[in-house]
């Protein structure tokens, strides 16, 4: 059976689109909302501990510690809200982390991403202070 060039182009285009959709879907599905929230909470824990250590060693001032505390507080509140939303969503939809597509992932991703971006900035700032 012979295929025309146009057929091959259609097959190639379809396969590429499928790959893009799969990659985008897997990027979202790769880490569950529960895992993201847990990771964010653990980052705050280590960030708060490091801030305390740096304050005790006089590597940061009280004012700086308060600033970091305020930022971590914002991220903390976002994670708490996200988890409450997630728990409610899991009950409503009777979904789990293995449900595909995950109906709860989109609901919490904005808040969690905001929290994680704040934490990433704090983490890098604190790490730089620790090296000073």
């Amino acid at each position, binding site marked *: 059976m012979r295929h025309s*060039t146009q057929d*091959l182009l259609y097959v*190639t285009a379809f*396969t*590429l689109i*499928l*790959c893009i959709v*799969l*990659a985008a*879907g*897997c*990027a979202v*599905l*790769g*880490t*569950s909302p*529960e*895992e993201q*929230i*847990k990771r964010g*909470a*653990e980052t*705050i*824990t*280590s960030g*708060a*501990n490091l*801030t*305390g250590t740096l*304050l*005790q060693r006089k590597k940061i001032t*009280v004012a700086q*510690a*308060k600033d970091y*505390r305020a930022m*971590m*507080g914002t991220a*903390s509140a976002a*994670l*708490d809200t996200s*988890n409450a939303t997630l*728990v409610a969503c*899991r009950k409503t939809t009777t979904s789990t*982390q*293995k449900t*595909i597509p995950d109906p709860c992932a989109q609901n919490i991703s904005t808040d969690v991403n905001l929290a994680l971006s704040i934490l990433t900035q704090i983490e890098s700032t604190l790490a730089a202070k620790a090296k000073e």
Partner: protein
Amino acid sequence: MSATAILTAITAVTDATAIIAALMPLIERQTSGGEEVTEEDVRQALAGKDAALKRLDELIAQQD
């Protein structure tokens, strides 16, 4: 082997690699049943961060 056949073969290999690479996170998530993060794990992590923030508040208050 014609140019079209070579192109088709290259495309098939490239696409298969891309599909496998794209599927890996999903496969890992589906097969990592033992490492699933439970609601309790999340609750404990959230409680841990609250405790750490409270300790930091106390330390800041001491030094303020």
